């Protein structure tokens, strides 16, 4: 490893070293607020480093890219981590989290996500993925007093461990078939002409199981609602945005190596996308817990992203990246609102908790309504532009049926998104006061809201930037 490599790793180093530093400081200096805000600073610094520092090399040790694509996602996940931390300031104090450890884990998770998004090798892929998976094992069960948190942690842990096994086996098989871990050579190596070689395809199958698990595609999605429900809201926000987005970011790189004709893989992806949209939508209909509803909605959304992934090409990739950003802003915002409403009585999760709170907490509930509308893909929000991009990519590459399925799913999904809006604003006014939320939460929510609305109205600059990632 050369100095240039290290320089290229600067943002990751900021995150990782910052994480370690906070962990150490936290042991002697347990001021939660200060620690978490420092963590925010570190994440922002990392984002700034990634954004403004052009690294001297394009690739680090054959494991990670440091090009525009990688830097983009590093910025994104660092900012997501910063937002998550901002959302956690009051939350952590309220629930008595150990500030240093919590912050350190979030930062470390962000480093893992950035690495995963940047991976140019199966080894990098594995390490990045595992880095933040391990973090989540802890973060999900971070609230020690909460039995549901422990249960969620356990479920994620066991399934995650099994998934790790599958991933490792898949990688091993691909390596067996191709003789290299490096992308895109590994992908080229497992194909012979238009067809996959059997072992390579088997390896891909294993990888798909893991990817399906990580991004919650049906039938590997079953953990999602439980884990979202049990995990602390900011963590669920990070889990639903960062971990999934990073996997997709890596997947774009993975698939880019495959030959244009992927007829062996396409039917699988097609089916995964379709049943994720259908099953996710239907399952969300009867939920009465907002976090579980958001979990199923994320299943549907990942189904949408799969459409774009299938479509491939420049427009597919662009659609994925934009969608991930839009989805991250809206989903993080939604979980953020839940976090900000959390008081001594715990998180408001069930629909009953949301009944009639709209006019008592106008800003946050209006924001939640807008986030939900964005998730539903209604203009003028980022979600609409994102969905437009996906359907556009789908139509362009001839996945009309999937597009229509997606349309139907988003139509039905309106019901459960609107239901929350209805509960908040259109029923009687409740008398219960939820937590008023701190300034950090409000600023985080404002940022998310701003992103959702601005990207809905003026998506041009971001779209141009994303287009540059793929050129």
């Amino acid at each position, binding site marked *: 490893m050369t100095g240039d490599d290290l320089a290229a790793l600067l943002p990751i180093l900021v995150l990782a070293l910052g994480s370690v530093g906070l962990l150490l400081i936290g042991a002697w200096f347990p001021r939660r607020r200060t620690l978490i805000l420092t963590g925010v600073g570190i994440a922002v610094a990392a984002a700034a480093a990634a954004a403004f520092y052009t690294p001297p090399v394009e690739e680090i040790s054959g494991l990670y890219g440091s090009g525009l694509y990688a830097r983009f996602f590093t910025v994104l996940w660092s900012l997501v981590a910063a937002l998550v931390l901002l959302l956690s300031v009051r939350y952590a104090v309220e629930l008595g989290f150990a500030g240093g450890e919590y912050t350190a884990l979030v930062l470390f998770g962000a480093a893992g996500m950035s690495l995963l998004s940047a991976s140019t090798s199966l*080894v990098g892929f*594995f*390490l990045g993925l*595992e880095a933040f998976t*391990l973090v989540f*094992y*802890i973060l999900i*069960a971070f609230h020690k007093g909460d*039995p*549901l948190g*422990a*249960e*969620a*942690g*356990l*479920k994620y*842990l*066991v399934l995650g*461990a*099994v998934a*790790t*096994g*599958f991933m*490792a*086996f898949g*990688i*091993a*098989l691909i*390596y*067996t078939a191709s*003789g*290299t*871990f490096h992308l895109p050579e590994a992908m080229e190596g497992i194909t012979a002409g238009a067809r996959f070689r059997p*072992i390579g395809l088997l390896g891909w199958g294993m990888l798909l199981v893991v990817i399906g698990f990580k991004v919650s595609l049906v039938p590997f999605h079953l953990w999602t*609602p*439980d884990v979202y*429900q*049990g995990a602390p809201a900011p963590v669920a926000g990070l889990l639903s945005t960062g971990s999934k987005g990073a996997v997709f970011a890596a997947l774009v790189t993975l698939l880019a190596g495959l030959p244009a004709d992927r007829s062996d893989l396409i039917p699988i992806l097609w089916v995964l996308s379709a049943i994720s949209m259908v099953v996710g939508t239907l399952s969300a209909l*009867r*939920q009465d817990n907002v976090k*579980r509803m958001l979990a199923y909605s994320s299943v549907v959304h990942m189904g949408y992203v799969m459409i774009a992934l299938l479509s491939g090409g420049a427009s597919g990739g662009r659609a994925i990246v934009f969608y991930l950003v839009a989805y991250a802003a809206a989903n993080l915002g939604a979980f953020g609102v839940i976090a900000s409403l959390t008081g001594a009585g715990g998180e408001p999760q069930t629909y009953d908790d949301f009944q009639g709170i709209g006019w008592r907490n106008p800003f946050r509930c209006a924001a939640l309504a807008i986030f939900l509308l964005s998730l539903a893909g209604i203009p003028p929000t980022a979600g609409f532009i994102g969905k437009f991009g996906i359907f556009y990519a789908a139509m362009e590459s001839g996945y009309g049926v999937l597009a229509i399925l997606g349309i139907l799913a988003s139509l039905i999904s309106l019901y459960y998104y609107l239901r929350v809006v209805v509960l908040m604003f259109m029923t009687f006014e409740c008398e219960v006061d939820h937590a008023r939320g701190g300034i950090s939460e409000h600023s985080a929510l404002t940022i998310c809201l701003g992103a959702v609305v601005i990207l809905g109205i003026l998506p041009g600059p971001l779209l141009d930037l994303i287009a540059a990632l793929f050129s």
Partner: protein
Amino acid sequence: MIVPMSHILAFSGAMFFMGFACVLAQRNLIMILIGVEVMLNAVGLTLVGASALWGQVDGQIFVIFLMAMTSAEVSISLAMVVYLHRRSKTLEADAFSGMKG
């Protein structure tokens, strides 16, 4: 290579699926974790075999990574097991079903 790759693959594949079967069949958390461990070791075997097949060290390096990672995972798992056991006095995996639907 003294052992053909196909044999290695067959063996490690079998081992992998035995591990997975263990995960599926066992109810006790410890046993499930052991199953995962078996799966991971099968992977290690495959990697070493492939590494030999291609005459590279990449695979073996990856095995080292894998082992490190596994140990981290195991430590977290065990911590979790202890934590859960202390909370609910059971290690039955299916006993933890407070959330569903």
